[in-house]
């Protein structure tokens, strides 16, 4: 089974579930229509859902995914607090600037997740990605250092370690 076929099967199941969720699981007509819809969608747009070969130890990865979710919530709360302090501070001690960090992640999806997590965290915003050099350009509201290694440690590493376990 090639990646494309596997990807189509996954999309088929997912779209059927979503269609059923939008309508109802009990109606036979809807079930049949859902199968048609899922077939259509998986033939049309299912070919690029997955991009890498089969992975091992699926339960371990789901577990790490849950851990990642809570870690992410924690980081968002912390960053929210820091930005709130900056906002209410009458002096407004901010130092906005664009920095570059390096990442060790290899896959498209993990880099995307890292970039989006950084964007969702208040105070930082991913601007661009250079996938060849594994670099992320980030706008930071309070640039404390200009060193790439230091920035990578502060912003990237807290997500990167767990993401490594989840996706790679």
């Amino acid at each position, binding site marked *: 089974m090639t990646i494309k076929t596997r990807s189509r099967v996954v999309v088929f199941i997912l779209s059927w579930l979503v269609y059923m969720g939008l309508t109802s699981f009990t109606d036979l007509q809807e079930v049949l229509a859902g199968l048609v819809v899922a077939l259509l969608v998986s033939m049309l*747009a299912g070919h690029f859902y997955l991009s890498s070969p089969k992975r091992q130890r699926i339960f371990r990865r789901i577990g790490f995914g849950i851990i990642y979710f809570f870690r992410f919530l924690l980081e968002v709360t912390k960053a929210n607090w820091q930005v709130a302090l900056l906002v209410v501070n009458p002096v407004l001690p901010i130092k906005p600037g664009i920095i570059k960090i390096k990442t060790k992640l290899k896959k*498209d999806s993990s880099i995307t997740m890292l970039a989006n997590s950084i964007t969702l965290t208040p105070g930082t915003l991913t601007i*661009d990605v250079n996938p060849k050099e594994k670099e992320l350009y980030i706008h930071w509201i309070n640039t404390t250092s200009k060193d790439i290694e230091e920035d990578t440690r502060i912003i990237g590493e807290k997500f990167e370690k767990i993401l490594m376990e989840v996706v790679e």
Partner: protein
Amino acid sequence: MKSQEGMTIIVKTVTRISVWLIFVYGIYIIFHGHLTPGGGFGGGVIIALGFLNVFLAYGKEYIKKWLNIGLLHDLEATSAILFVGIGIIGIAMTGGFLANFLSKGTLFRLFSAGTIPLLNILIGAKVGVALFLVVWSLSLFHIDEGGEQ
């Protein structure tokens, strides 16, 4: 910075993972046009936006590999002809253009309301393809070409 066609890897990955959802939702809106708000046009627009999402994220060359543009043109015309065809069958069966000649079914079920769901599907195909083709044709213009004066 423009090393490759399309947008950055972030947009590409998100599009890759989420575009099927857009299509499912668009088709759901079309299929339930006679039961809930929406219908052929709304669902067709959503489907066209799904196509455009891939188009913007991945660029022109990818679309050429992915879709058969000539086939889409044919699909657009075919759905319009089928629409008129259903209308003419209406004349033949009951005497009015677009008259409802199928059984109406039970209310609030999927297969009900006679020809209306069929027409909705045809309109959805037509709108979804046509809107995408409009933007596609506009993107084929080269802005620096064909100067006069």
